[in-house]
């Protein structure tokens, strides 16, 4: 039977990361851009947890630093989503659009 190794997870993480990057760079809708950022963060999380498992194999079950980092990343994602969506609402209220390429003013 084929074994699933850390590398499998890393490749999956990389693919997810690239999807996120494409989304951020190409989409116009701010909400989708924010969601793509979530994809990127999740790819990072996947890598962190996979590394944590690898590290556990070497240093024993209590070497959970990767997972702790993943939790920090999730916290950060929550903060980012809250502020990002807050900005989005303020922006939508003033310009009535959710497209990134129409955000071309520093103030209004």
């Amino acid at each position, binding site marked *: 039977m084929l074994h699933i190794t850390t590398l499998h997870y890393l490749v999956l993480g990389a693919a997810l990361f690239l999807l996120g990057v494409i989304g951020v760079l190409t989409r116009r809708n701010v909400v989708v851009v924010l969601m793509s950022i979530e994809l990127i963060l999740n790819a990072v999380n996947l890598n962190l947890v996979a590394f944590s498992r690898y590290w556990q194999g070497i240093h024993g079950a209590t070497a959970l630093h990767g997972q702790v980092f993943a939790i920090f990343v999730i916290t950060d994602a929550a903060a980012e989503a809250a502020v990002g969506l807050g900005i989005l*609402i303020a922006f*939508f*209220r003033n310009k*009535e659009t959710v497209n990134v390429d129409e955000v071309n003013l520093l103030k209004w």
Partner: protein
Amino acid sequence: MTDPRTLSLLDLETPDKTHLDANELVINMGPQHPATHGVLRVILRLDGEKVMGLECVIGYLHRGVEKIAENRTYTMFNPYVDRMDYVAAVSNGLGYCEAVEKLLGVEAPPRAQYIRVILTELNRIASHQLWLGTHALDIGAITPLFYTFRDREEILKIFEKYCGARLTTHAFRIGGLQYEVYDGFEKDVKDFVAFVKPKIDEYEELLTTNRIWLERTKGVGVISGKDCIALGVTGPVLRASGVKWDLRKAQPYANYKNFDFDIPVGVNGDTYDRYIVRMAEFRQSLRIIEQAVEGIPEGPIMAKVPKVMKPPVGEIYHSIEAPKGELGYFIVSDGSTQPYRVRVRPPSFVNLQALDVMCRGQLVADVIAVIGTLDIVLGEVDR
């Protein structure tokens, strides 16, 4: 933030912005809305959930009762008035009969007067019970509805035994009563009073000190006594705002001056006070019934009225205290068998005008509570 009261009421242009910064949103409530007690349509102007103003659109139940009166004899029109406020048909009949009696210059004999008072007060209790059940249901308490309908049933049974009808009773005739009371009427009424007294405590137990009920009704739909008078609001709504005005005391009709009862008044004029006032009116009505049933005199039940009624040329305005407020009849006679004009002053119609004042600055959910607390019957509003 501008005071919503300063905004023009009829300014109802729909802003077609639906985004977050929309200044106001116009929504339509009814006529097919479960909480508008029939076919009332309310156009609400909202800022978020806050009511900036509202307009009532009525007339969905208009049947032209006043116009019908012009083509019927005085006697023939009598059953029609039952169909206005169909939950308080007896009161409507009382007001009409007394108005015509005044026009004719006759007076119902004392025995008829007593029986009229008993039936009218029973009807007031029935009307208030229906109000309580539906009002509580609007606020989300489902159980009081079943309790009140259970007890209202006993009143309707008495009506049915007396005149054969339960809802649109046509109980009174011009000049007195058509039917003598049935055997055991006094006992039935006494039994009912004894039966319903603990039940009213039961309603109060469910609601009066219920925390959620207090939160939903206290400070909701406040109207001052001054505003009430300015708008012509009468009945329990006026009394809950602290104005001690009850036509049974102020301009005694029938023989209310023979009975000893209090006029319950409120202080704050909010929905809770209106609830309290009506709950107290239950008890006062029971007091009146107790006194009346003890003192029914013997004698005839019908005054001497001509077979063909031709009241002298003239006009009359007579009003009574219906369960919902001042119910007035303005009748113009041209000396023929048919009235020249009948104009009804329905309490629900006038009280409904206060809805806007009471709802401004409140939340949408409160509009439903306020419509409930006004105790309107659309049959009476539209006539």
